[in-house]
């Protein structure tokens, strides 16, 4: 699912790449930029954390004119007075004018590297509102943001994640192989998809999925169950063969009311109550009328 998210099939999305000090998410961000460039999209980068040279390193050279880097790395707070972009310019109007500098009708992807820097200097609630407005505004096709989640309070991170359509949380992989990405993706209809994948990033910034883990919790439960087989070594027979089972099922249980039994009791046949008696020679039959003393 990581590849689908990176391909960015749906418009109006907000993809959040969440990393921590253990694993840097910038490589994934760069491969995101690369795939967007390959899709013939215009990419605007608000760069606070790395210089333009460092970001461009490894990116597709042929489409460099579609990549616009807004340098806020050299002077993020505007102290020298001639900074191309400052953190205080993170408003809808300023971003709108930035995007209009390049008069192209093509789809625009806005990359924010990183949101952590902006969150330091703005009210988190205001950031959320601006991100939502960017998402809904229709000016940009997609917003991709990098967030260092260990630098902020849990509530701030939670609020930003709540807004995002896709959240990719990256962490170092076990045994030093690749990295683990937990992906949570919301579709427009409100459906939620989650996945966990182990990936690695190649030299040319393409992402390779190594393996998938869809249900991390289910595996240990089963192994525990299969270890113990209590019926393995028994001195008596617990199992039934098919013929035995058939014979067992034929047996009517004492307190079970079957249909036949019920109908037999409720609707007795007409001639069923007759007593057939054939007199026998040995019968001790009293000839006398037992009631002859009565005056009937």
């Amino acid at each position, binding site marked *: 699912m990581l590849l689908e998210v990176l391909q960015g099939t749906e418009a109006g999305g907000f993809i959040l790449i969440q990393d921590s000090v253990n694993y840097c998410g910038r490589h994934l961000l760069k491969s995101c930029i690369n795939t967007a460039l390959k899709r013939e999209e215009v990419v605007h980068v608000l760069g606070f954390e790395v210089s333009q040279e460092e970001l461009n390193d490894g990116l597709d050279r042929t489409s460099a004119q579609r990549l616009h880097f807004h340098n806020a790395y050299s002077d993020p707070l505007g102290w020298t007075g001639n900074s191309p972009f400052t953190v205080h310019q993170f408003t809808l109007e300023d971003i709108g004018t930035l995007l209009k500098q390049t008069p192209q009708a093509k789809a625009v992807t806005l990359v924010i590297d990183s949101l952590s820097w902006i969150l330091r200097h703005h009210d988190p609630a205001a950031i959320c*509102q601006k991100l939502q407005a960017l998402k809904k505004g229709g000016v940009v096709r997609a917003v991709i943001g990098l967030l260092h989640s260990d630098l902020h*309070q849990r509530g701030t991170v939670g609020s930003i994640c709540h807004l995002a359509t896709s959240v990719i949380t990256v962490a170092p992989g076990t045994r030093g192989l690749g990295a683990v990405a937990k992906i949570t993706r919301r579709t427009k209809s409100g459906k939620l998809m989650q996945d966990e994948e182990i990936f690695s990033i190649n030299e040319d910034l393409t992402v390779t999925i190594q393996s998938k883990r869809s249900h991390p919790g289910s595996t240990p439960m089963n192994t525990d169950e299969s270890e*113990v087989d209590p019926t393995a070594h028994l001195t008596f027979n617990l199992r039934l063969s098919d013929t035995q089972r058939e014979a067992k099922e034929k047996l009517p249980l004492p307190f079970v009311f079957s249909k036949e039994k019920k109908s037999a009791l409720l609707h007795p046949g007409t001639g069923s109550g007759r007593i057939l008696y054939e007199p026998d020679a040995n019968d001790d039959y009293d000839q006398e009328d037992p009631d002859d003393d009565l005056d009937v």
Partner: protein
Amino acid sequence: MAAPKMSMGKPTADRLPCNTTSFQKKSRSKLVSIPGTRPSIQNGQLIVSTGVTSLDYVIGGGLAVGTLLLIEEDRYDSYSRMLLKYFLAEGVVCGHELYVASALDHPNDILQELPAPILDDIASPKTVEDQAKSCDPESQDAMKIAWRYQHLPKVQTALASSSRFGHYYDVSKTMDTEICQAARCHGFYLPEHSTAVTSPTATRQSPMPETYSSLLNNLQEVIHREGFDGSVPQTKSRNILRIGLHSLGSALWGDDLCCRENPSHGHALTTFLYGLRAMLRSSLSVAVVTVPSHLIQNRALMGNITRLCDTAIALESFRGSERETNPLYKDYHGLLDVRQLPYLNCLVCDLPDNKDLAFKLKRKQFTIERLHLPPDLSETVSRVSRGELTGTAMVGSSGCGSGSTGNRHLDF
């Protein structure tokens, strides 16, 4: 000539029984005439349905008019949003007026996603019966029961009252646009209202209080204009206003409740709720508010918010938690917790008989059921091992008693 005579005759006819006996029928005809409402069995309050029949049952019949239902959102806001849509859809079907406020999506978008009602009134109970009938022979085939136990009532997991109130909805389809447009709806989309308000206040003053107060003012204006408050003389037939407020308290409302432990405007939402409740009490309206409680850092504040609402329920989805793969919960989509029930005109409220409630979203409907273990029909899994499963699920420690695993099953 005939008309005045008729009007003269009516009051005398009304008065006549009063002269013969002091008994007067307690008439509620004025209130009952509103479609989609009925008096509560417990306290006689006028109630409306939430749109989910089993939720109505859980909260004591329905939502009393003039009260506020708080829904604590699940982690990804999928089921709480669905409950809100059910509530609004029920309003559309009953002909109530709607008021939708949101900061995330445009109210019109929310209204377009309303689930389609299953309006065929005879068909829907029949299908339920059919299901029950089709279940019965199966279970008789599967299990032989001694005859004296055959007629014991089945344990009812689905919660429903005996009489029908509210409608059923098909989640897979959206409501017809014709039905949707027939309903009168007032929307409040925060970005549309706040641009005028917040742009002048760029002078480092947080826009927080304005968002809530503009919502409250807008709501008050609608209630007054449309004549939902009691002060307006009764000129036309009364109606109910259903108010749905989506994701209140989230960062999009300009509230830093979710971001900080000690929010700078900690009283903003509670103040708003006070105002909202006062407004609801004096008008023919009922409100549902969803709050992303998992994001709110300050538990005391969340407690305050809960106390300021009349009914409070919390949804906890299994999505993304370890419970998703737990066999105990495999039939359900999440847990529902009733946090608070209102005490209306009486000292007691009717508590639900079972507090372990779970919800599931079937293709056609959202149901709340009593959480219980399913009957175990397979012969390989013994009852004991399921008990152990619950034990490990609750405690989370599977390491205990590992030495005796071998003979654990042979303890007889």
